[in-house]
C-alpha cells in the first residue's frame, strides 16, 4: 500500500489537539425575505482530533448550516467555531476538506481534474497534482476512470470522486454533508465501509451529517443529535462499539439500543 504512505508522510505538523474542532454557543440567524430565521441556536460541542462524529436531526434543523460554519463558508451570528486555538471565519482549504452531495463535481472536468481541483487552486504544479489525484482515485477504486467525466459515472462513483477530492490535500478535518444521501442502501453501505477503511489508516477528524441512523451508529465514535429548528444539541451519544466495525455489529443488542435511543430523541425533539 505504497500510495497510503505518501498520504501519511504529508501529515506531519498536524498533531497535538490542533485539529480539535469546537463549537462555542453557536447561533445562526438567516435574514430572509420573510424576516429573520433562526437555523441553529446555542450549539456547543467538541469534536476530538481523529474521531468520527455524526450529526443527525430532523430535516431543516440546521445540520448543513452548522457544517458550513465549520467549513468557514458561513459565519455564526453569535458564538464561535474554533479549531485548535484559532477561530474559523473563512475557508481553510489546507486543513479542512469538505465533501458535498454529488452535484458539487464540476461536470466539465474529468474525475482526475475534479480530484486535483483543490491542488490546482493552490497553484500546485501539474505533474505533482496529477500524481496525487491518481493516487487518490486508486484509493477509492476508481483508478481506471480517471479520465471520465461525471456524466459517465454512476452516483456511487461520483461520490467516491468527491471523497477522493476531500482527501486530496490531506486535510486534518473532513466535513461531510450527507455524502451518500442520493445513493441506494447497498451502495451507501459499501461506501461507508470504504470510507471507514480509509479513515482507519489516516485517522482524520470527520464530521458526518446523515439522515440514516444506521449509518450514524455504524460509522461514528460519537453522534450529536439535534432538535428540530432552531437546532440545538439534544444529546451527545457515545458509540461504544469496537473497531474495525463489521456488519455483524448491526445485529447486536447494543447497536439496536443506540439506534433506538437516537430515534427516540429525534422523534421527541420533533414535537414542540
Amino acid at each position: 500500500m505504497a500510495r497510503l504512505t505518501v498520504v501519511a508522510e504529508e501529515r506531519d505538523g498536524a498533531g497535538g489537539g490542533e485539529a480539535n474542532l469546537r463549537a462555542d454557543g453557536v447561533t445562526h440567524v438567516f435574514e430572509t425575505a420573510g424576516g429573520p430565521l433562526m437555523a441553529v441556536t446555542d450549539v456547543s460541542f467538541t469534536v476530538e482530533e481523529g474521531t468520527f462524529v455524526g450529526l443527525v436531526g430532523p430535516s431543516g434543523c440546521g445540520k448543513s448550516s452548522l457544517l458550513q460554519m465549520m467549513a468557514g463558508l458561513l459565519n455564526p451570528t453569535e458564538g464561535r467555531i474554533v479549531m485548535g486555538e484559532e477561530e474559523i471565519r473563512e475557508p481553510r482549504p489546507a486543513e479542512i476538506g469538505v465533501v458535498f452531495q454529488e452535484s458539487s463535481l464540476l461536470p466539465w472536468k474529468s474525475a482526475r481534474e475534479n480530484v486535483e481541483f483543490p491542488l490546482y487552486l493552490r497553484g500546485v504544479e501539474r505533474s505533482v497534482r496529477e500524481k496525487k489525484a491518481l493516487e487518490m482515485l486508486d484509493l477509492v477504486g476508481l483508478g481506471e476512470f480517471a479520465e471520465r467525466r461525471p456524466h459517465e459515472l454512476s452516483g456511487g462513483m461520483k461520490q467516491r470522486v468527491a471523497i477522493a477530492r476531500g482527501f486530496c490535500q490531506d486535510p486534518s478535518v473532513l466535513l461531510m454533508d450527507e455524502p451518500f444521501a442520493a445513493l441506494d442502501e447497498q451502495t451507501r453501505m459499501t461506501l461507508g465501509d470504504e470510507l471507514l477503511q480509509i479513515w482507519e489508516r489516516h485517522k482524520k477528524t470527520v464530521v458526518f451529517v446523515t439522515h440514516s441512523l444506521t449509518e450514524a451508529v455504524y460509522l461514528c465514535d460519537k453522534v450529536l443529535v439535534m432538535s428540530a429548528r432552531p437546532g440545538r444539541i439534544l444529546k451527545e451519544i457515545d458509540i461504544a462499539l469496537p473497531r474495525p466495525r463489521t456488519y455483524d455489529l448491526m445485529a447486536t443488542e447494543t447497536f439496536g439500543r443506540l439506534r433506538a435511543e437516537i430515534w427516540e430523541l429525534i422523534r421527541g425533539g420533533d414535537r414542540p
Partner: protein
Amino acid sequence: MSGAGRLSAQIGIVVGIFLAWEAAVQTGVANPRIVPPPSQVLPMALAMLGDPEVLHHLWITSAQVMLAFVLVAPLGVAIGLLLGESDYFGRAFKPFFYFVASVPKSVFLPVFILAFGIGFTQKVAFGMFQAIFVLVISAIAAADSVSADYLKMARAYGASRRQIYQDIYLPAMLPVIVEGLRLGMIFNITGVLFAEMYVSRAGLGHLVANWGMSFEMVKLFAGILLAAVLSIAVNESLRWYEKRIGAWRG
C-alpha cells in the same frame, strides 16, 4: 449511428431532394417558369460566385452581418450577465426583455429607416436589433445555469475571486453563451437580409428581391441557394464549436 454514417445519410437526403426537385420539373409536376430545375439553378449559383458584381453585393451583406455581430455579441452577453447576476437589475429589466422578445421585430423596420436611412448603418442596426434579445435571454440562462453548489465547493477549497470567474463561471456558462451566439447570428442574418429586401441599394437581399420582382427565376433561386448555404455554414461551424466545448453536458 456513426459520424461517417450520419454524414453520408445527410448528404443522401440533400442529393435526394435535388433529384426529386429536378424530376418534378422534368415531369411537369412543377411549373418551370415558377420553379426552375436545379440543373439550371446550380450552375447559375456557381457562376454567381465568379461574378464580380454579385460578389460585391455578397461582400456588403457579409460586412453588415459581421459588423452587427461583432457589436451586438459583447453587448447582448454583457447585458444578459448583468441581468442574470444582479438581483437589482434583474428584477427591474428582465420582464422588459421577455416582453419585447415576443414582439416580431420586423414591424420596427420602418422606424429604423426613419432613424438611420436605407444604407449600411441601418442594416447593421437592424441586424443588431434582431439579435440582441436572444443574446440577452440566453446569457441570463447561462448565468442562471451556474450552480450555487459549484460556487460553494470552490470557496470551500479556497478559490480566489479570479479563480471563481475563470474556473467556475466561465466554463459553466460558455456552452450556453455560444448557443446564444449561434441563435443571435441566425437572427442577425435574418434581420440584415430582410432589411436589404425591404429597401436598399445593395446586398444579397437587394439582389434577391429584384430578381423576384423581375421574374428572373433562375437567378432568384440561385440567390436563395447562396443565402441558404452561407447561413448553414455559419450556423454549423458555431454549432460544432458549441458541441465541442459543451461535450460535458452529456
